């Protein structure tokens, strides 16, 4: 098949040169099955040897080569150029995942990303149970196997690992982290990748690490910071769907009651309470429930809203007519 042509504008920068960034433009031809990485390699080996980017496995399993094309995070090695051209047209702009952390061309400093991964305690702490006790983890040997004893081959029902739901196949490429709009605004937010990692261990029947749920429920860093834009799920190159995992953790944190999680958590639980009681949303009590004494700071705005008829304070606001049905539905959806 005849090759097609594409124009790439590639972000160039060198932290050691201290100059501002620029874009280099390359007009190239590509073949039917060329991936973005193939085209970059062509530039690197034949046109401009100084172009720098991370890459390794070439088939989307090592997670090295995440970068942005026209603003969309992709894995360069498993994104056909033809698909990009179909989506964005024949002019493509290639950027590093996060321009504010770039050190060289398409290479970003990923320390923050890895630091959050490490903070999520990304390792299994094996449960120690009696070999005779019932339950799915029954046959897990409690002894470290370093002592040379013949090990017990563990029995785990295949169903019990289904709950992990492919979360252990995250390749830590950072695409979701770069796409998440909360991360730049709330530097403490763990982000979708680290939270997906936590999910993976929370759902593992063999894990005994205490306090994982409390950690993801924490205000400022945990699940409450998510604004549910679904960007992470949209860009994940491995279709892991971080959002649905995060949202399941939301529910679990609420159900466990272990963590109030600040305003955002109370807002969510207040919302729920409101609906359960009346089948309607009554915003004033909800705001009081969520913000507590901080309502003071909203006083001026509240008065102005009231004067303009935007705030209805009616504690006796009637119930929704079908509130029993709503309550039933809510119970069932849990």
């Amino acid at each position, binding site marked *: 098949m005849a090759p097609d042509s594409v124009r790439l504008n590639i972000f160039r920068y060198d932290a*050691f040169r201290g100059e501002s960034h620029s874009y280099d433009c390359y007009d190239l031809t590509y073949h039917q099955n060329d991936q973005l990485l193939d085209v970059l390699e062509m530039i690197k080996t034949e046109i401009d040897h*100084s172009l720098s980017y*991370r890459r390794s*496995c070439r088939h989307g399993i*090592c997670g090295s080569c995440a970068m942005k094309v026209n603003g969309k995070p992709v894995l360069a090695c*498993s994104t056909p150029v033809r698909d990009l051209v179909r989506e964005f047209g024949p002019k493509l702009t290639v950027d590093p995942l996060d321009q504010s952390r770039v050190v060289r061309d398409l290479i970003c400093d990923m320390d923050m990303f890895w630091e959050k991964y490490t903070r999520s305690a990304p390792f299994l702490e094996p449960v120690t149970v009696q070999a005779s006790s019932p339950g799915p983890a029954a046959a897990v040997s409690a002894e470290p*196997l370093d002592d040379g004893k013949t090990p017990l081959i563990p029995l785990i029902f295949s169903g019990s690992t289904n709950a992990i739901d492919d979360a252990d196949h995250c390749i830590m490429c950072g695409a979701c982290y770069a796409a998440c709009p909360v991360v730049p605004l709330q530097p403490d937010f763990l982000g979708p990748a680290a939270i997906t990692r936590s999910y993976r*261990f929370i759902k593992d029947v063999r894990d005994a690490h205490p306090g994982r749920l409390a950690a993801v429920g924490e205000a400022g860093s945990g699940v409450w910071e998510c604004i549910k834009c679904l960007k992470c799920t949209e860009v994940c190159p491995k279709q892991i769907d971080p959002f649905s995992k995060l949202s399941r953790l939301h529910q679990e944190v609420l159900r466990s009651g272990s963590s109030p999680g600040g305003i955002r958590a109370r807002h969510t639980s207040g919302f729920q309470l409101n609906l359960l009681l009346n089948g309607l949303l009554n915003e004033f009590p909800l705001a009081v429930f969520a913000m507590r004494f901080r309502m003071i700071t909203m006083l001026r705005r509240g008065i102005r809203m009231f004067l303009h008829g935007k705030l209805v304070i009616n504690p006796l606001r009637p119930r929704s007519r079908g509130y029993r049905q709503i309550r039933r539905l809510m119970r069932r959806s849990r």
Partner: protein
Amino acid sequence: MNVAIEKSDVVIVGAGLAGTSAALQCRRAQLKTVVLTKVHPLRSHSGAAQGGINAALYERDTSAHRNDTIKGSDYLADRDAVETLCCTAPEIIADLDMHGAVFSRTSEGKIAQRPFGAQGTARTCYAKDRTGLVCLQTVYEQAVREGVDFRCEWYVLDLLYDPLEGRVYGVTAMDLRNSRIHLIQAEAVLFATGGYGRAYSRTSNAHANTGDALGIILRNGLALEDMEFVQFHPTGLADTGILISEAARGEGAYLLNSSGERFMLGYDPGKGELSSRDIVSRACETEIREGRGVGPRKDAVYLDLRHLGARIIKERLPELYSMAMTLQGENMLDQPIRVAPTTHYSMGGIPTDLHGQVRDHRGSPVYGLFAAGECACVSVHGANRLGGNSLLEAIVFGRRAGRRIASILTEAAGHHGTGGPSRAGSRTREATEDDASPAFRRISNFYSGDQQGSFYPLRKQLQQLMTAEAGIFRSREGLEDARRRLHGIAGQLHRTKVKDTSPCFNTELQEALEFENMVLYAAAIIESGLHRRESRGAHSRTDFPRHDDENYLAHTFFHFEESEPVLDYHPVRSPESAQEKKIGT
């Protein structure tokens, strides 16, 4: 010279399964352990392993696994090493499972196993078709838990080796973020740098698989073992060489030629598609050479999975499905996919004993130096590796090397206080700034004045040369021609220049240094192949098509003496020596 000098108990180079498994053991023994890796540990190529990991879990004993491995190796594997590998396997699976690996399971809750090539029974445990990723994550994460010091994006340039004492005392490395040179003095150095598939133009290997330790070994006058044995995997994607796992055939896929015939039944009627990799690769290559290939250039054969059905493919081979779709635009549910043999694995490497202790060309130990994983040659794979044995080898021998290092160092500390004399009876030498000068010289050679031209075209030439002449089929003429041309490439390399002068992620310089290593061990592959005048396992000579047990049932040792290649042969270790070695392991 701007050199940073630091001290550690142990330096491990490479953070794939072997390196990380070793690090975990060293750390558990409270040793100061530094792991240098040019990519983040989770980006290591161990994670790309797809099909599985062998263990005789539900068999009467491990003898069948052992026999299959020895037979698969074409009788070149050392029996004691194979025994160790197979006996430890069930324990490794249990350990991985206990620490979080999510293996695929049967409905009764047992660990599921699929059949792999040249094995009498279904023995390969798997996690869908992402087994390596799951194992790597598990081991790495336990290392994080133990607090191993990982230095990501550091590139190792040289070994600190005292040839008179026969002792290694550290490494020279470069921090890729700023190109700063570091000397890390250590009591023990472990190489776990993986394979060298990038020396070939068609390969399943990652860009990172440049076998750096092998070049460093040769530059220091040490030996490499069995380098002629390069495994070609029968089913790489036709256009790129990227791997389609043996799991596909394990689940029942067929190989078809242009007339739609299951040609493997002609080459190995008993095992068919599940014959050993060397046999299947040669069969595919023969079909292609004899004009029964498929695809626009007739340079591939078909791998047909359609009869497996969508459920099995999506449940057990999801990665393969999406890879064929993305990388080659072929939907394996509706059409057969084009595959061809691809360079996959290096059976040879740095010679070691059962504890990862590196040996020189005479077979005597190089104190302070260890190796494990694909870069090492124990040898468990002999002339041909069985699918599912590589992840296993990396963990088993990585762990053993780590434990041996730990026992040597803690023993020495017990007798003489920390940092005391090692087993060689001599004190570890102090690293000085001068030790960095060979590394500086290597780098400055690429920047000196009058040179021009880039090494990239040379690298392409070398890769094509290796695939053509040191590939599936070899001959004296071809290998001699390769030797001549390699000589030319080596000469030209010294007249090339690196243009990029940035200290920050200078990937051009890094690739140039990697290529320099490649040129060295390519010579080892060619010379070892030229001198083995027989066909065995993956080494297939058209001019010597048969085994020659009388002369060549032996391991090749290759090293340079005054830049001249020297070959030695050492006998295969027998089962009797296995009995002796088992005591005290």
